[in-house]
C-alpha cells in the first residue's frame, strides 16, 4: 500500500537527422557508445548477480550479445557513411528496422528480443546525446506505475523505497515480473485498463496473493490492509530478532541453521539474518569474472575479506566447483556433451592442479590459523577420489610447514554427498571422513537422470525427494555411530515439509540462503 509514482517512461527522444562534418569521428563515437553500453550492462549484471538466479541473469547476457552483434555494428556504420549523418539517428533507424522485422515474425520469443533492442537502442542514443536515462528517483516510499519498465531501470532502483510496481504491459513471465519477484518487490503486470485511471499520488493497494489492485481504497480497506501489513511486519521482525539465538524444538532437539554464501554481500546477510555459521561457501562464485587463474594470494585475500564479516563461527568452505558449463577466460574449456557429468569440480581441479587446486588448498590451510575452517570436497564419486584429495591436502599441509609457514593443525575435511555411488555406501567413508554434507540438488539430478538446467525435464527433480530422504536417513544413522556430523545443503534444506523429518533423524545442521533462516528457525521453534 502506498502512493502512486507515475513513471513517464515515454518521454520521447529527440532524434534529428543532421549533416555531420566528419564521418570518421561519428563512427568513432558510435563505437565508443557501444563499449560504454556494454560496460553499463556488465555493471548492472554485477549488481544483480546476488539477487537473481542463473537463468534470470541470462537476460543481461542476451543484452550484451546484441550490443556486440557484428551486423548491428556494421549496418549502423554503413548507414552513417552512406547518409553522412549523425550516429544517434543511424542507431535509431537501424534498430527500428530490426524491431519492425522481428515483430512482424509474430513469435513471442522473438518479440521479447525486439523489446530488448528498443531498450538498448534508447540506451545507445542517450549515450551518444550525452544524456542521462530517466532514472527513477523516489523521495518517499511509493508504488511505481508505468506503461512498462525496463530491466535496466529496475536494476538501478533504490529497493528500499519501492513498495510495489504495476505496469500496463507484460505478462507473468516477462523479465520485469521475474526480476521484481526475485527482488521481493510486489508487482502486478498487464493492468492496462486500470492504470489509465491512476493519478500521481493516488493511494494504491497491491494484493499479490489475490492479484488485485485497489485504487483509492475506502477507509475500510486501508484499515484492513494496514493491519495485515503490520501483522506481517511484526511477524518477520520477531522472527528476525529470535533468529540470532540458537534454535531448539519444543522437545529440546537442537540443530544448527547455517547459510549458503558466495560473496561478501551474502556473508553480511548471513550474519544479519542470524545464521549459526557458514554451511556452504561456494568459492567458485568469487572468481567467475576473474581474468586469469586466481593465485594463492588472491584466494587468501578474497576469502579473508569475506570470512572477516562473520569471523567467530564455523566456516565450511567448498573447493572450487568449476565445470565446462561455466565458460572461464582462463580455462581453455573443452566442450562436453554433459557438463554436469563431465570434468568438473575436483576432476578439473586435479587436471589443472598447479593453477586451480593447489593455490586454493594452500590459501585455505593458511587461513585455518585465523578461522574455524572446514574443507568440503565436491563431486567425490569413489573411495579413490576421497583418498586422492585427502592425501593431497595432507601433502600441502606438510609442504607449507616445511617451508616455514606454520599451520597449527590440519582442518577437518569432509565430503559433499552428491553422487549416488557415495550416498549408497556410507560404510566406506564414515571412518576416515571428518564430516558429510548432502548436496541435494546435484544428487537429485543424478538420481533422476534429469539435467537441472533443462526446463523440459525439471519436473522429475522434485520426485526424487523421498529417495533422497531415505538415503540421508541411512547415511546419518551410520555416520552418527562413528560420531561424524551430517548436514544438508541444497534445496531440500529449506523445504519446510522436510524439517520434521530432518529433526527426527537428528541431522546436525541445515544450510540455506540467508534470507530464509529466520522463517525456518521460527518453524523449528514451533515444532514439537
Amino acid at each position: 500500500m502506498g502512493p502512486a509514482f507515475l513513471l513517464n517512461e515515454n518521454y520521447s527522444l529527440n532524434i534529428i537527422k543532421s549533416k555531420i562534418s566528419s564521418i570518421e569521428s561519428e563512427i568513432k563515437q558510435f563505437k565508443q557508445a557501444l563499449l560504454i553500453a556494454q560496460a553499463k550492462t556488465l555493471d548492472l549484471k554485477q549488481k544483480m548477480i546476488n539477487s537473481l538466479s542463473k537463468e534470470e541473469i541470462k537476460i543481461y547476457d542476451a543484452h550484451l550479445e546484441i550490443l556486440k552483434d557484428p551486423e548491428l555494428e556494421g549496418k549502423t556504420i554503413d548507414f552513417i557513411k552512406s547518409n553522412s549523418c549523425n550516429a544517434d539517428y543511424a542507431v535509431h533507424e537501424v534498430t527500428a528496422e530490426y524491431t519492425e522485422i522481428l515483430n512482424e515474425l509474430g513469435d513471442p520469443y522473438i518479440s521479447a528480443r525486439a523489446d530488448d533492442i528498443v531498450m538498448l537502442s534508447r540506451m545507445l542514443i542517450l549515450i551518444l546525446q550525452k544524456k542521462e536515462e530517466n532514472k527513477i528517483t523516489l523521495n518517499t516510499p511509493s508504488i511505481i506505475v508505468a506503461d512498462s519498465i525496463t530491466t535496466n531501470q529496475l536494476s538501478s532502483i533504490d529497493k528500499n523505497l519501492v513498495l510495489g510496481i504495476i505496469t500496463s504491459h507484460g505478462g507473468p513471465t516477462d523479465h520485469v515480473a521475474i526480476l521484481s519477484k526475485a527482488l521481493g518487490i510486489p508487482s502486478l503486470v498487464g493492468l492496462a485498463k486500470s492504470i489509465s485511471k491512476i493519478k500521481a499520488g493516488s493511494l494504491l493497494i497491491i494484493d499479490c496473493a489475490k492479484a488485485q489492485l485497489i485504487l483509492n481504497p475506502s477507509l475500510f480497506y486501508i484499515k484492513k490492509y494496514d493491519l495485515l501489513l503490520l501483522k506481517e511486519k511484526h511477524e518477520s521482525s520477531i522472527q528476525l530478532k529470535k533468529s540470532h539465538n540458537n534454535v531448539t524444538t519444543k522437545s529440546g532437539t537442537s540443530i544448527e541453521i547455517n547459510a549458503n554464501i558466495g560473496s561478501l554481500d551474502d556473508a553480511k546477510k548471513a550474519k544479519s539474518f542470524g545464521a549459526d555459521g557458514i554451511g556452504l561457501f561456494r568459492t567458485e562464485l568469487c572468481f567467475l569474472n576473474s581474468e586469469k587463474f586466481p593465485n594463492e594470494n588472491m584466494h587468501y585475500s578474497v576469502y579473508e575479506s569475506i570470512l572477516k564479516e562473520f569471523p567467530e563461527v564455523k566456516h565450511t568452505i567448498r573447493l572450487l566447483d568449476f565445470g565446462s558449463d561455466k565458460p572461464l577466460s582462463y580455462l581453455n574449456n573443452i566442450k562436453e556433451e554433459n557438463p554436469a557429468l563431465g570434468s568438473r569440480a575436483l576432476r578439473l581441479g586435479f587436471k589443472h592442479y598447479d593453477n586451480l587446486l593447489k593455490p586454493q588448498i594452500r590459501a585455505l590451510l593458511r587461513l585455518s590459523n585465523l578461522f574455524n575452517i572446514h574443507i568440503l570436497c565436491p563431486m567425490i564419486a569413489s573411495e579413490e577420489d576421497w583418498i586422492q584429495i585427502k592425501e593431497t591436502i595432507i601433502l600441502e599441509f606438510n609442504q607449507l610447514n616445511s617451508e616455514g609457514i606454520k599451520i597449527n593443525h590440519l582442518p577437518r575435511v569432509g565430503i559433499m554427498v552428491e553422487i549416488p555411488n557415495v550416498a549408497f555406501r556410507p560404510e566406506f567413508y564414515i571412518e576416515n571422513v571428518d564430516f558429510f554434507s548432502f548436496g541435494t540438488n546435484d544428487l537429485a539430478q543424478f538420481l533422476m537422470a534429469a539435467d537441472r538446467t533443462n526446463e523440459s525435464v525439471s519436473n522429475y527433480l522434485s520426485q526424487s525427494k523421498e529417495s533422497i530422504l531415505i538415503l540421508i536417513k541411512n547415511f546419518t544413522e551410520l555416520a552418527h555411530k562413528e560420531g561424524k556430523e551430517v548436514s544438508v545443503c541444497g534445496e531440500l534444506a529449506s523445504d519446510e515439509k522436510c524439517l520434521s523429518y530432518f529433526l527426527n533423524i537428528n541431522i546436525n545442521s541445515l544450510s540455506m540462503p540467508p534470507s530464509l533462516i529466520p522463517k525456518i528457525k521460527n518453524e523449528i521453534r514451533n515444532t514439537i
Partner: protein
Amino acid sequence: MIEKIIKIKDEIGFHARTSSLFAKQASAFQSEIFIEFNDKKGNGKSTLSLMTLGVKSQDVIKICANGTDEIKALETLEELIKNNFTT
C-alpha cells in the same frame, strides 16, 4: 566459396537461442558465413540477422562459407544444425 543446402529439424527454427548458438559457432571461423533463405541473405555471425530471416522448423536453408577455413566451418555448422543445436 562453398555452399550447402540443409533442412532445419529443430522444433522452432532460428529463434533467439538457436540463432545465438549458430552465430557463436560461426564467429569462431575466419571465413565469411552467410545464410540464404526465401530470397533473403543473413550474416551467419550475427544473431540479430539470423533471427530476422524467420527460418522455421522444416525450412530449407543454404549455408555459404567463404574463406581459408570454409570447409571446416561448413562441416561444423552443418553438424550443429543436424544435432538440433546441441553442442
